[in-house]
């Protein structure tokens, strides 16, 4: 049996010759919070191999950039993967404008080292914003491996709390915080973590996925106690296979490639300043792209659809 990666479509390339282009179909897409959308994408090869903690790299259309997104879950039988995407800049805005029936030109993966899944004891899984969707598959796997999973999910406000039901199922205890107190407890995820530590709960491992300031705060919180803490880093990537070195992060004073050596690293050894600095490298260009997107979102999305190799 031949396992096909994607649906072929006949199209003309820029030199006018006919060729087959494989595309990845979006079989379901729905917003799960304002600006956060979940996609179900046909990608049988990836679905078959995905493990928690791994990601894919997407390229929406011919003129698109390559962006990494974590696989939230996969369905081997159906041959689909799910991703959860937050609109940040142009690419994620265009992506989140796509609907069921649209397709993505390139989806490659699963990339990165899978999360280490074994029986650690008590594990605290912390998700900040869309990071919750990235932490979810690992939380579920840790639970299945027999760990006691305490999850702490944080969001700016009530509307942005995502995957509550899923996280509840994947955890023995679920705590939720919102920055503005519009839902559950007001405060930050680190407040909850500190409470847990102060209550004398034995914590064997902390996994934190979210915005860089949140991951840095978690690292600072657990450092003194020497609690093993992992963070999932999100540097800028291109190929995702270790070829370009663009995703290098400074860990324990050494360069590591997040796409092959990570994305999870020991939080206490990560140099977050360098990560923040490198992630700002293309700010001007990103703002320019985003401004153009805002000026005429519809035609940008259409241009992407057209540049997808559709007949």
């Amino acid at each position, binding site marked *: *049996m*031949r*396992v096909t*990666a*994607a649906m072929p479509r006949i199209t003309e*390339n820029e*030199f006018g*010759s006919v*060729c087959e282009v*494989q595309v990845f179909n979006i079989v379901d897409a729905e917003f799960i919070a304002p600006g956060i959308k979940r996609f179900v994408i046909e990608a049988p*090869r*990836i679905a*078959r*191999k995905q493990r928690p903690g791994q990601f894919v790299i997407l*390229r929406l259309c011919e*003129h*698109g*950039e*390559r962006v990494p997104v974590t696989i939230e879950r996969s369905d081997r039988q159906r041959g689909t993967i799910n991703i959860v995407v937050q609109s940040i800049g*142009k*690419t994620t805005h265009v992506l989140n404008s796509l609907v069921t029936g649209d397709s993505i*030109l*390139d*989806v*490659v*993966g*699963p*990339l990165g080292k899978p999360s280490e899944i074994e029986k650690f004891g008590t594990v605290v899984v912390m998700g900040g914003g869309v990071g919750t969707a990235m932490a979810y598959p690992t939380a579920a796997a840790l639970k299945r491996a027999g760990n006691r999973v305490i999850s702490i999910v944080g969001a700016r406000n009530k509307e942005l709390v995502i995957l509550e039901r899923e996280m509840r199922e994947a955890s023995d205890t679920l705590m939720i915080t919102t920055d503005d107190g519009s839902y559950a407890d007001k405060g930050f995820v680190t407040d909850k973590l500190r409470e847990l530590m102060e209550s004398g709960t034995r914590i064997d491992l902390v996994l934190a996925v979210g915005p860089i300031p949140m991951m840095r705060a978690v690292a600072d919180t657990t450092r003194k106690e020497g609690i093993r803490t992992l963070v999932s880093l999100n540097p800028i990537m*291109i*190929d*995702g*296979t*270790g*070829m*370009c*070195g*663009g995703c*290098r992060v*400074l860990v324990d004073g050494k*360069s590591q490639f997040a796409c*092959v050596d990570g994305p999870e690293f020991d939080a206490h050894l990560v140099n977050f*300043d*360098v990560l923040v*600095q*490198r992630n*700002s*490298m*293309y700010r*001007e*260009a*990103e703002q*320019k*792209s985003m401004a*153009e997107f805002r000026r005429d979102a519809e035609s940008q999305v259409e241009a992407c659809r057209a540049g997808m190799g559709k007949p």
Partner: protein
Amino acid sequence: MSDAPKQPAKPSTPSLNPFPLRERIKMPRQHMPEQSAEERARNYGEVNLGYSAELARQEALRCLECAKKVCTTNCPVGVKVGEFVQLILAGDFAGAAAKIREDNVLPAITGRVCPQEDHCEGACLLHKKGESLGIGYLERFVADYEQRMGIHSFHKVPPTGKKVAIVGSGPSGLTAAGELVQQGHNVHVFEALHELGGVLVYGIPEFRLPKQIIREQLDYMRAMGVEFETDVVVGRTVTIDELMEEEGFDAVFVGTGAGLPVFMKIPGEHCNGVYSANEFLTRINLMHAYEFPKYDEPIVDCRSKDVAVIGAGNTALDAIRSALRLGARKAFVIYRRSEAEMPARAEEVKHAREEGIDFQMLTAPVEFLSDSKGWLTAARCVRMELGEPDASGRRRPVPIKGSEFDLPLSVAVMAIGTSANPIIQSTTPGLKTNQRGYIDADQTTQRTSRKGIFAGGDIVTGSATVILAMGAGRRAAKSIHEYLTTGVW
């Protein structure tokens, strides 16, 4: 002074060349028409414009038709130079292309990027008399002619029913694929990136090797029946064992290249503005960052900034000449050895000089300096002198004490080499590698330690050249065919 070569020319067929040998030796090598240096340094158009039919004929007339074909024996794939040059003289350009294709399935590419001075042209008898025959230029001419005319001259044999997986679509993989499909095997190429061609598309820039040439070669291969699947990282998306056990592939060729960038591990390498050549060139070539914002992938703005590349191979020169085309004000090559040791193709060095690249020889960076926001401001460099010969036989560069100086820079590109791409090795049990992590493969059969798995190109030799990778692909195809027809390992 111009005595005819000792070696008598005894062509089996009467020569089409009306000129006696001693006159041929006096003929000057025909210049390759090119864009002027000022013009091309600011555009992405190809530097070399190609011979006209007349120039090609003029150049072909210089060939001495030697009996001992040193040009052929020094070509890694044994292109029958003498014979294709004769066909040019006969005006049969298509025939000349077909003649090259007997040994080399990518002539439009090798004609452009082979380090001819190390192979065919370096050995050419005319070289000893002055200037070698422009073999690369002629090869390029007939290949381009063939493409322009849309001639597809391949023969197909009945299907064998055997399936071969090719991992990686660089020159080694494409060569193996092209040869195997012509023997009737079902050939399926898997490529990790979204574009086919390996270094030919993500590394070598448009101004040296237009992408259209590669795409046309790929269309040609599709017409021959090769199947391509992009976005598959073998080892991650599917393993070699799964390909063989579950997807029915009878043999696998691994041509995954030497794709990992090496850094110098000096302070400041993580600064904004410090790139690996792979990233810099990938952004430009694969992702079209030079066409931002039409294409979404950005690159650090080089306009009116000073840029340097560390290293002096083809990769380094491609990177710095790209920076110039991105609008760099000053563009430096920083190299720790001297001119004589520069590994780049002679023609590239010449072109780079004409375009105004500043070569800082016997110099090495020791640290990158940055501002408070982490942006590169300068490379602290040290001058070197040549000491005793090292393991490579070249004189070892030794830092001169107290010679440190700061070279102000906004962008620095590291092009000091690559190492083995480990994904296949680490996901294929029993596949032997050498100490440096490259795959162990027999030099003539390209067999690896695993039955049915073959390997070749940079993933076996370390970074080498297009033509050497193609040679390996060709040998692999031959022994894969043998293995598939005899079943003997």
